């Protein structure tokens, strides 16, 4: 009952490599984050997106810097995929003044207008309808800018989801609603919170196309994102993409995983998008193992540089506390 794509766009070799570049950058960054936390160098709740790298990577190759994304606490992969620079990202995670938000956003509210990373919320659902505002602005300005709203499967059950999709469709807004369905909302299984077997079916209720996509297959995500973005850019309105995937590290880093069986977890993790796509690139002659290793090393170097940079930055000074509450500084 969910829609089926007829014209499947296929990324060329360079684009495939670019997708992989983003994926490995995410993966290296995620790995380093967990290491830093484990070593006690940073203290922050961390919502790892290990396993979900493919989704924003295959989408972001189709986006420009001025295309916007609105994402969530589990969204650093979305930002890294959008090529947000890692130094200000890390400085922000560490709460330093050179952070992209002067240290005042912190790990849960990273934003970076230069690369279109506009809203990151800690309140489930809230960023989805905000995406519509960016899209309206684009319509009004007559640009081709699109906005991608990333969210989880659990978030598809809150009222904000409904209002966001209905508004976007009534107004034919250039938004792509991307549900990263990892099967769980915190520790609650999909089916205990969600009344429909495929979230993409909800698109029917908003008169927009809805697709269920293999979120671990870059080519599948790319093809559907391509259609959705084309549709948005040409003024036809929004699309709902449900990308099925898995979060390898549980809800928040350090989580116990007693809420699923070992077999279930092992099976899901066997479908790791990274080694699978790596192998595919090599097999299809898009890249050699060496090229990929080089790319990996480069990503790792960038991450390490960003971390060391961040650790060397100052904390914001006390006056910052009272700045940015309003346009004018508030009195002490």
């Amino acid at each position, binding site marked *: 009952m969910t829609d089926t794509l007829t014209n499947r766009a296929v990324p060329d070799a360079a684009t495939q490599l670019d997708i992989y570049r983003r994926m490995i950058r995410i993966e290296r960054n995620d790995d380093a984050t967990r290491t830093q936390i484990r070593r006690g160098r940073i203290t922050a709740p961390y919502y790892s997106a290990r396993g979900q790298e493919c989704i924003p990577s295959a989408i972001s190759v189709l986006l420009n810097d001025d295309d916007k994304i*609105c994402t969530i606490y589990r969204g650093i992969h979305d930002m890294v995929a959008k090529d947000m620079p890692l130094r200000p990202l890390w400085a922000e995670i560490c709460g330093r003044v050179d952070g992209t938000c002067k*240290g005042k956003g912190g790990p849960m509210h990273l934003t970076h*207008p230069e690369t279109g990373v506009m*809203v990151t919320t800690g309140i489930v659902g*809230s960023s989805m309808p*905000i995406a519509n505002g960016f899209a309206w602005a684009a319509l009004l300005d007559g640009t081709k800018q699109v906005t991608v709203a990333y969210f989880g499967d659990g978030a598809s059950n809150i009222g904000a989801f409904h*209002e966001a999709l209905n508004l976007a469709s009534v107004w034919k807004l250039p938004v792509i609603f991307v549900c990263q369905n990892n099967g769980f909302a915190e520790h609650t299984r999909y089916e205990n919170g969600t009344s429909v077997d495929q979230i993409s079916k909800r698109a029917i209720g908003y008169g927009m196309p809805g697709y269920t996509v293999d979120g671990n297959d870059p080519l599948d995500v790319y093809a559907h994102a391509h259609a959705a973005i084309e549709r948005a850019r040409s003024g036809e309105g929004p699309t709902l993409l449900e990308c099925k995937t898995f979060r390898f590290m549980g809800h928040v880093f350090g989580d116990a995983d007693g809420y699923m069986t070992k077999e279930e977890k092992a099976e899901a993790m066997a479908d790791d998008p990274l080694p699978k796509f790596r192998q595919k690139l090599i097999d299809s002659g898009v890249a050699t193992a060496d090229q990929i290793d080089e790319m990996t090393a480069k990503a790792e170097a960038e991450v390490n540089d960003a971390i060391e940079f961040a650790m060397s930055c100052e904390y914001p000074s006390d006056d910052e506390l009272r700045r*940015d*509450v309003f346009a004018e500084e508030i009195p002490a």
Partner: protein
Amino acid sequence: MRELNMVKAINDALDVMLARDPDVLVFGEDVGYFGGVFRATEGLQAKHGIRRCFDTPIAEGGIIATAIGMGAQGLRPVPEIQFADYILPAFDQLVSEAARLRYRSGGEFWAPITVRSPYGGGIFGGQTHSQSPEAIFAHITGLKTVIPSTPYDAKGLLIAAIECDDPVIYLEPKRLYNGPFDGHHDREIGTWAGHPAAQVPEGHYTVPLGKAAVVRPGDAVTVLAYGTMVHVALAAVDETGIDAEVIDLRSIVPLDIETIVASANKTGRCVIVHEASRFGGFGGELSSLIQERCFYGLETAIERVAGWDTPYPHAFEWDYFPGPARIAAALRRVMENT
């Protein structure tokens, strides 16, 4: 100059801003084609086009969220929420997103939105069409809260709010749309005709946010009010013959603390008036601020006159409403109590 009632003054402000600034957008339920249930947006869609003034589905959270995104991309949205009581489904968006975007982005972007909403009672609206929610907004850091009491101020403050780069909750005392209601519901109710503040200049002008107006100078006691209560307080002062200084706060965030403190220090006596229920209302903040800053200037305890601590009561509207008699009694008490 033209005489306008408050609805027309608000309409005029929107018209001026739509014409002047292509980034200004006006939208909400029934706002476009129909012109708004209180007629505040009448004619704006016809004049400025459907892209600048448009209808929305019933989805207050979605409306405010859309405004936030627009604002973060540089537009100046002016959404209408039809009654202030309907703001609550959008409360999360206002608090967790609109109010906080500037701070958490380190000043990179913000939500310069102006949420217009009719509020207050005295119109037989019952529980969910009469409330005064200003206190819950005043407590949210990052939001400004503005409440006009005359057509002149309504236009000037609304333009200032739209031009302000912060999110503003602009509450319109719906009881004042057609006239300066003084609380005497049992008498014939006047219109704005002939009222000096109904003289509304054409074109662009502002009344700055954060500046109170001393609407009646006096030496005996300071009366703080806003919205409908300004007119009710003036009536009460007249009826008692007490030489009160009546201050119309006009915006409660930012608050014109200097004007308040100067008056309280002069009179040594204060009565604070609001329609919202008393417990936890904005009067508590005003009273504490005065007490903190003017302690040794106080001759008697600061009084609060407010709605009772009940839901807005359908069957007891005029009992609940802090009318001239209740304010007059408080004025007499603070004058006697020394």
